[in-house]
């Protein structure tokens, strides 16, 4: 794998406006206002933080995996990446990253895709999409309408390693993250951030051991 460029942040978690640990398998949803800095910390290492973003003003505008990777000409996210919306606007910019590579193509696990990928009997194992559905239905957009399954789109997997080969193959490899690694981004508009802290037990995306992550938000300077 080519060298990853790691960029540390100067921000001090002790001075953050908000801190919350998200246990493995839990959903999390929170407003991040324009100018605020949002960090996700992989507390124990090799955890996948499945993440979606929506415009707080109009959640019909949301993070777009295809627009993000095409506009930067690269499928991996790291420092400097602009997370693009479906309407072609920059939602957040990654400003620090001590992991160096994050996945855009693997998506979230779901009880149904687990049946396809592993065994039909896996249907009853907890999965990210159920967490996403719980998170988004709890949020009221400005118009008052709740979000639902139709709003759950192709997500980011922070800290997850999904290499694509020049021959068109795709692999799930052991993580490149480690305990204490983090990714940090500045909101360029008011966004709703949604995390499903992945409960997957069937592949190495969590090193077969889902662990907590921490969400930290600093006020705009």
């Amino acid at each position, binding site marked *: 794998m080519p060298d990853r460029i790691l960029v540390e942040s100067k921000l001090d978690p002790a001075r953050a406006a908000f801190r919350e640990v998200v246990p493995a398998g839990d959903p999390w949803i929170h407003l991040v206002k324009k100018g605020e800095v949002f960090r996700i910390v992989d507390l124990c290492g090799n955890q996948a933080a499945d993440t979606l973003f929506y415009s707080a003003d109009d959640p*019909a505008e949301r993070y777009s995996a295809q627009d993000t990777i095409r506009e930067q000409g690269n499928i*991996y996210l790291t420092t400097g990446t602009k997370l693009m919306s*479906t*309407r072609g606007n920059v939602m957040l910019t990654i400003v620090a990253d001590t992991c160096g590579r994050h996945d855009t*193509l693997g998506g*979230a696990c779901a009880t149904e895709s687990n049946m396809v990928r592993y065994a039909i009997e896996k249907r009853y194992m907890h999965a990210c999409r159920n967490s996403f559905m719980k998170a988004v239905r709890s949020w009221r957009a400005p118009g008052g309408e709740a979000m639902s399954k139709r709003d759950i789109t192709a997500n980011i997997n922070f800290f997850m390693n999904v290499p694509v080969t020049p021959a068109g193959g795709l692999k799930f490899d052991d993580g490149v993250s480690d305990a204490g690694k983090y990714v940090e981004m500045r909101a360029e508009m008011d966004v709703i951030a949604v995390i499903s802290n992945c409960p997957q037990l069937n592949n190495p995306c969590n090193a077969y051991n889902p662990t907590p992550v921490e969400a930290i938000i600093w006020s705009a300077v």
Partner: protein
Amino acid sequence: MTLFEELLPPGAMWSHVLKRGTALRLTALEAGANVGAIFYNYENLVERYNMPDTLKAQHIARLTAGSVLYSDMGRILCSITEDSVGWHDPVGGCSNAAMLFRKYGASSYQESRNEWHQNGRDSFLTEIGKYGMGERDLMANVNFFSKVVVEDDGSMHFVPGHAPKESLVELRAEMNTLVVLNSCPHPMDPSPRYSPKPVLLTVKRVPPPARHDLCRTSRPENERGFILTERYFQ
């Protein structure tokens, strides 16, 4: 047995409920064609084509004969039963109005009539609007006849002129699948001119997938995908 044929002109949009037991063949009538495509379960439109599930279930970042298109419910919307090209792009996405303006300048219906510049995103939104869907329902799309290679460092490279004239790809519906297409150029197409290409659409009746069907046997995951799809109709 062919049921009907239709010419999809350059830069045009189309939709059709492709019934289980029928197939859609796309034939590129000129070199360098692109067909943007999205798929929904017509009986339950919140079940739709899912790019990540399609890629990770089959461990692929390209589509070809033997690949299937998964919905977000673990079922197969369409199988790719024939392909003369070997690579169709599932990652590049679609063009939008601002991109076309940047690349090709202004274009209006008043000035150009039906030669005006149509973009992928607005075409998809217009066509799915006819089924009561909108922006929240537009997910990642496929680009038939186009190739985007990803190098080891993650960089993405569009391969110009990938599909020659007469290239074809055939999609067999495994469900009653709303297929939404447009023939707008690929968003990474470096051509300095807006130059979409025409595509022939052929809808035909086909036999159900046999026990040793290539799409069923290409991966153990697909074997289960077919079982789950069959259960939906039982």
